[in-house]
């Protein structure tokens, strides 16, 4: 079986834990519970004719008081950078974290998940900003841990990218 480590990175309270919970356990709760340290989960899936075990490292959200330690990232094959569409500054944080990981991990596959798309009417991230990011090479998917929209697709996409298939 092929084993791949994926790190969930982003600002605090953007929904990293909820996305993993939705993907692994098909569950969601509205109650915000901050992650301290790292939550490690596992999910097996079939990709083509191969069985893949995803090791999901859900890291604490970065804020002004605690920076993500790059040692946690070691061994990662892919990154899911998560931002909250209702908080524009979380997009900046995702970009900053991606830059930080390039130094320690090199250029590994990554996706930007614009989470909370169930709250689309409250989004404050300008569409132009996301267009600009997409033009500069970012692959962006819209997700909602609450409704499940785009969640499975995101994990399947990053798996495909890690397996060397960039078209999925």
């Amino acid at each position, binding site marked *: 079986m092929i*084993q791949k*480590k994926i790190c969930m990175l982003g600002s*605090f*309270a953007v929904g990293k834990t909820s996305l993993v919970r939705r993907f692994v356990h098909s569950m969601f709760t509205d109650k*915000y*519970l*901050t992650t*301290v*340290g*790292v*939550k*490690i*989960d*596992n999910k097996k899936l079939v990709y083509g004719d191969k069985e893949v*075990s995803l*090791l999901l490292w859900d890291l*604490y*959200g970065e*804020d002004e*008081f605690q920076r993500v330690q790059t*040692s*946690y990232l*070691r*061994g*990662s094959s892919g990154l899911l950078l998560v931002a909250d569409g209702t*908080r524009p*500054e979380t997009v900046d944080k995702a970009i900053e974290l991606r830059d930080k990981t390039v130094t320690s991990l090199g250029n590994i596959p990554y996706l930007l998940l614009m989470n909370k798309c169930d709250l689309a009417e409250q989004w*404050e991230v300008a569409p132009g900003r996301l267009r600009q990011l997409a033009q500069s090479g970012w692959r962006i998917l819209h997700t909602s841990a609450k409704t499940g929209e785009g969640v499975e697709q995101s994990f399947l996409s990053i798996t495909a990218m890690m397996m060397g298939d960039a078209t999925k």
Partner: protein
Amino acid sequence: MSTLPERMIRYLVEVLLAERQPAFLEVDATGRLLSSGGALAHHGLTELQHGIHVEEQLSYLMGFLPSPEERVVLSNLQTGSGACIDVHILRDSQETSTWVILLDARSEHEHKQVMQQKGNELSLKTEKQARVLNAHLGKSVVQMLLEGSWPIRSSGERRNATILFSDIRDFTPFSERSTPESVFRTLNQYIPAMLDPIQEHSGIVDKIAGDAVMAVFGILNAVDASPKLAVHTATAILRNVADVNRLRTAEGQPCLEVGIGIATGPVAVGLIGTFERRGFSAIGHHVNFASRLQGQARPGEILLDEESHRLLEQDGVRFNERMLQLKGFSNPVRAFGLFPLLSDAPPESESRTKSHRS
């Protein structure tokens, strides 16, 4: 640090062992488990197999063995079933094996969780308040209010300022023949196109009234003089509106234009409202003047009063002068027009204009 008495060291080790339940794994240079010991059962490690790769037995150590660094600490790893551990990875001095030490971190984790939860909830609340305030007052105004460096007396004072009015042309007939959804979608395309440049050029948004925006320059600190800031803002507004129109044309939506009036002079500025809810406001003749000029500006035109124009004269920008009879003004006034997005100004009405180069 002075040496601790042996009795104390023994005691501290006992406390540490009881609380942290250390277990260890010794891993060879190829990542295989050489030996293990300590409180393995406490960490659920009852089926470890020596000679087998550790990563196959403990998947969370994938990528960490053998360790290229002398020491790596992974704090608060929650590996499922409620366990929470600190993992210390140490390379031995001979570099032949790596030691993995597992420590129970539940107690520290619970403590951190409470503190972090409170901190993050507070940060979310503060972020939200800042976003709401920024959206209503502009970032620089909010920052000054928070820092206590608001540059005017709340009770009111007279200041020289430049007033800018920007208005969407023919919006009322458009709104009458459109659905409410279309009206608000359109406003939410054009109004941000006007607001962003105001804040970027140190202006204060005084009010948004339907399809019009009023801004004040010269209150917030800036390097440039207020008429210059206002004209730069107006030019940026017209460019943004042209971008919106390109987008709307592509969508098959009707395009709208804006006209802008600018006047400079003394105005009364202060805060109006109750203690709980109040906002910045500028009042006076030059506010009306700018509003009237905006009423006369043609689509895509910036129309200045004489004082704004005088203060801009050294910049060498070419304006077209014309005399206007404005409502509420007993005598005709000189006004100076500019179409910044056109290479040549459009022909003026013969009876009331003459070419003017400043």
